[in-house]
């Protein structure tokens, strides 16, 4: 499946499609990274809350 030749317009088409996919790729990667960071942060905090509760439980026991 050869890359089609668009004559004079080829660089423009490459530029347009390439730019778009690049932007979308960056957006997706950034979003996924952010989501991942949020999830692990939340898990971290939840763990800390659990620990604190457990410690309080021990203390009052």
């Amino acid at each position, binding site marked *: 499946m050869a890359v089609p030749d668009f004559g*004079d317009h080829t660089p423009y088409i490459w530029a347009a499609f390439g730019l*778009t996919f690049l*932007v979308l790729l960056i957006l997706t990667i950034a*979003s996924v990274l952010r*989501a991942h960071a949020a999830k692990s942060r939340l898990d971290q905090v939840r763990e800390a809350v659990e620990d604190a509760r457990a410690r309080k439980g021990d203390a009052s026991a």
Partner: protein
Amino acid sequence: MLSRLANPHRFMRTSSWLMPTLGIVGLLMIASGTYWALWQAPAEKYQGDSARIMFIHVPAAWLSMGGYIAMAAAGFTWLVWRHALADVAARAIAPLGAAFTAICLATGSIWGKPTWGTWWEWDGRMTSVLFLFLLYVGYIALRSAMDSRESAAKASAILALVGTVNIPVIRFSVDWWNTLHQPASVIREGGPSMEWDFLGPLLWNAVGFSLLFGFLVLLAMRADVRERQAEALRLKLVTG
């Protein structure tokens, strides 16, 4: 407001399967749509091959406007019903809508040079889309400048609503003014004037990009919800 997000269970549950579905289907549609656009669709009669850029440019344009409307609607929902998820949605949409507007402007410019000989004209359509981009930027700037989540939500909702006047201007600019940009050929009275050879890949790509947009919005919303939950929990931890 943080506490109201403490248990957005239904949203998180639904989006946990909806989001990846949108992402995967969207990606597949974009991939196949690109193949259709570049390898299968014919060159346009007058413009030649550069018209293939339309298959990205138009969906990006639709999403930039649709995104703004959704953002304004979310703001309105938040103002009236104070539904916390509405603000989460608005916040998530803003940078994505801005990105798609930028893609619309850039691809339009790249399309314009070989086809009409110019990178840019200050005609009604291009000027108003540029302003749409500025509106997005202003919205994001205002949000980050406000001190609290609450005031950021209110202020940006007001701004988004006031800026909605620009949308009909964009839509009808090609009718009201004599523009370099061509008149509406898809969403118009009497139905689309485009042939299927072009309408097909266009609509296919439009749906694909929209699904991807939805995927990214949900991803951002989920991240935001988790960030807020973590913040609320951390506060509780610190204040004991």
